[in-house]
């Protein structure tokens, strides 16, 4: 079974965390010089598998790891690296305070004795030449844009004589052009006999360069398939395990009164000349790649990132251009941030306290104290209304699952009875079942007459769950489409244009 042509062979790999089975009995082989995709939803066990391959966590007894034909009984992180396995984590694991050259040749510092700067430069230069990349060796990584940082990470893997490069969600923060550059680099590595493993839950981009795809679901391997016959859609259904078929939605009340009107809104360096409107009961999608200015625009509406120029009108009343968040809330705007963990919730405080945070003022009695009765009864209402699965409203929010946390944030803002609800990437990090629940909640809110803006970079999400989509790119509006009147491909093309 063991052949030298396989860079990596895993058999019978299992791993359990507390009562949760993260991986059960996984077999996997990666051939030399192949591009192998590891696909699966969040929570399917992809990251645990990477940690085991890279020696960061051991598998349960009985699992076998063979690297380059040699079995590894107790694989350590250092041994995994030494045997030619390089993981490029999503955060890239670079040192922002060191130069490009030093980051690439960082492994040189393991050698005892004095630092040979000439050797470090030469190693870095060699790695870049092998991949046909040019970067300023003396630039600090902190000063590089994200795409160039990724190149530094790939060069570092090359400099470490990698035989298998594992890339965790490599395309998540890249533009289409940058993804293309990454794919051509992948071909370069492949032609040098280096195996590349892409780990992702969005594989449409990397499918074209892949040879084989392994799909994980709930910690189990569904199989390894040839990429040639695989479509994005078939892969998605495999990953999810049931097919969610959504229909596009058309807006039933095109003549409803306008809630939000934005005219020529600009902010230097973030976005320029954004004009749009949202009506009562309408769901407006805003999409675009990371860095398109979509989030910055939303923050400006909410008073957290003041615009320089333009007009914002809510229900016919113009907001001051440099309005505060307090004024935005008073005007009926609610904002659910992308990173609910850092921006949306006080993780150590109870579910109840989090739910009450936005409406404390209304609940308070004459001297500013909140009566206990209201403190208990209001949260109970919201927990039931949104189907939050929580044993007790006094438990810390941090103990809830991602989807339920997202609902707490939603409830917190719905309690302010908003006229306009802005949801920034509402389903990031949420498993597929909970996603469906959130989509249903959004539809219901809109049906009740709330104007909703959904910001997302997942194209199917805006295509199937909004009435109208605005596309942003480099801070400008580059298109406006109605999903009911166009195809998903058309929308994707507009985003990638």
């Amino acid at each position, binding site marked *: 079974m063991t052949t030298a042509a396989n860079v990596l062979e895993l058999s019978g790999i299992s791993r359990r965390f507390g009562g949760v089975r993260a991986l059960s009995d996984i077999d996997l082989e990666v051939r030399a010089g192949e591009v192998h995709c590891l696909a699966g939803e969040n929570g399917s066990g992809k990251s645990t598998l990477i940690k085991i391959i*890279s020696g*960061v966590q051991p598998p349960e007894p009985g699992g076998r790891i063979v690297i380059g034909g040699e079995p590894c009984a107790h694989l350590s*992180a*250092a041994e995994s*690296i030494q045997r030619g396995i390089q*993981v490029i*984590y999503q*955060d890239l*694991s*670079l*040192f*922002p*305070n*060191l130069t490009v050259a*030093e980051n690439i040749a*960082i*492994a*040189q*510092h*393991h*050698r*005892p*004795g*004095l*630092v040979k700067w000439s050797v470090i430069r030469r190693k870095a230069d060699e790695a870049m030449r092998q991949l*046909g*990349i*040019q*970067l*300023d060796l*003396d630039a600090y990584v*902190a*000063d*590089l*844009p*994200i*795409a*160039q940082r990724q*190149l530094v990470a790939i060069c570092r893997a090359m400099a470490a004589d990698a035989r298998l490069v594992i890339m965790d969600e490599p395309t998540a923060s890249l*533009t289409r*052009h*940058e993804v*293309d*550059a990454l794919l051509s680099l992948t071909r370069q590595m492949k032609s040098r006999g280096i195996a590349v493993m892409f780990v992702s839950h969005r594989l449409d981009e990397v499918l074209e360069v892949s040879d084989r795809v392994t799909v994980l679901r709930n910690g189990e391997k569904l199989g390894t398939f040839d990429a040639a016959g695989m479509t994005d859609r078939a892969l998605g259904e495999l990953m999810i395990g049931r097919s969610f078929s959504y229909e596009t939605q058309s807006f039933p009340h095109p003549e409803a009164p306008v809630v939000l009107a934005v005219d020529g809104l600009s902010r230097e*360096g*973030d976005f320029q000349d954004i004009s749009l409107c949202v009506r009562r009961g309408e769901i407006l999608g805003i999409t675009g790649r*990371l*860095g*398109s*200015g979509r989030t910055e625009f939303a923050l400006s509406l909410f008073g957290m990132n003041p615009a320089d120029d333009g007009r914002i009108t809510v229900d016919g009343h113009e907001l001051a251009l440099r309005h505060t968040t307090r004024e935005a809330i008073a005007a009926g705007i609610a904002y659910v941030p992308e990173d609910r963990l850092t921006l949306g919730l006080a993780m150590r405080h109870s579910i109840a306290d989090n739910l009450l945070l936005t409406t404390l003022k209304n609940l308070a009695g004459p001297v500013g104290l909140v009566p206990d009765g209201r403190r208990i009864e209001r949260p109970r209402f919201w927990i039931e209304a949104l189907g939050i699965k929580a044993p007790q409203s006094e438990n810390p929010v941090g103990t809830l699952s991602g989807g339920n946390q997202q609902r707490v944030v939603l409830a917190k803002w719905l309690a302010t009875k908003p006229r306009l609800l802005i949801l920034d990437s509402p389903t990031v990090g949420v498993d597929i079942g909970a996603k469906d629940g959130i989509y249903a909640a959004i539809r219901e809110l809109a049906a009740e007459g709330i104007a909703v803006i959904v910001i997302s970079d997942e194209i199917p999400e805006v295509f199937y769950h909004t009435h109208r989509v605005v596309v942003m790119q*480099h*801070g400008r509006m580059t298109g406006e489409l109605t999903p009911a009147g166009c195809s998903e491909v058309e929308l994707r093309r507009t985003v990638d244009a």
Partner: protein
Amino acid sequence: MLKRFLATHEFRLLIAAIALTVCLALGSPRFLAPQNLLDLLANTAFVGMLASGLLVVLVAGSIDISFTATASIAQYVAILAAGHAGVGLVGTVLIACVIGTLLGMLNAWLVSVLRMSSIIVSIAMLNIYFGLLMLFSNGQQIFSMPDWFPDALSWVVGTAPNGDPYVLNAQIIGLILSFAVTWFLLNRTGIGRQVRALGGNQEAARRVGFRPLRLSLIAFGYLGFTAGLASLVQAQLAQSVTPNVLVGRELNVLAAVVLGGASLAGGQGTVLGTILGVAVLAIMENGFILIGVSSYWSQCFIGLVIIGGVAVIGLERKRQRNHASRVIAGPAMTARTITGGTE
């Protein structure tokens, strides 16, 4: 190369130091007198040596402010041994340095084992070390130094017009040596680069196989080592040992290092910056005395300079970050720009 240097914090500090020197030289003719400069160096030695050690800990991404207590203990024990047990020069230095290194390492070990923030651990250890020293010493000063001690490691290198000798003493040697060794450690050794990498991104350092605990032991141990050396240099300057005279100066040292561009967030800071940070504060203090400014005013001024200096660093870093993120969001990001072509 030169262009890069002109954009650095060190360059701005250098300008500030030169400007200060010029002003003070104009304000007081005595300022640039060789004797005053030598005195200035000798008086700065204690703070400067500690600053070089603290720089290493800050670069590693931690902080330790217990070093003045460490220095007090090292000083007390070493001088006691020198005076009563007849330990020679080498032995005295060895005792002070070993005590300093071990106490420093104890801090690193506690930070790692207790998984507590290093600031809290070092505040606690400052109190424990100092409390123990006062307990065992009863706060008694030591005046009986061995005969060789007052003039150890000093050479006359010239004569002033009025006949006074110019002396190259242990303070100046210690100061120069500690900056030189720190520079060598941070820039020319693999361990030093690992320490800097650790301060830049601890998780990434772990992933490439650097060992955080070992690197912390080295960084904190090195600070303890410099504290041991600095304590002897200070004892020689004062010609006595007072157990409670050093504690309280740790924040001055921290201020000098931070003014020199080191970041409390770790990974940032250079020896040149630290030298200039120490120099700016020392020159100001000395100059204010020479031109007769009240010492309370000079304290206020020094505080203002620290705030101003650190604010400039903060603004500069913010500007750079904005620049980097603007490049990400910039127009026409093509395959060419990604691969480092000109924009």
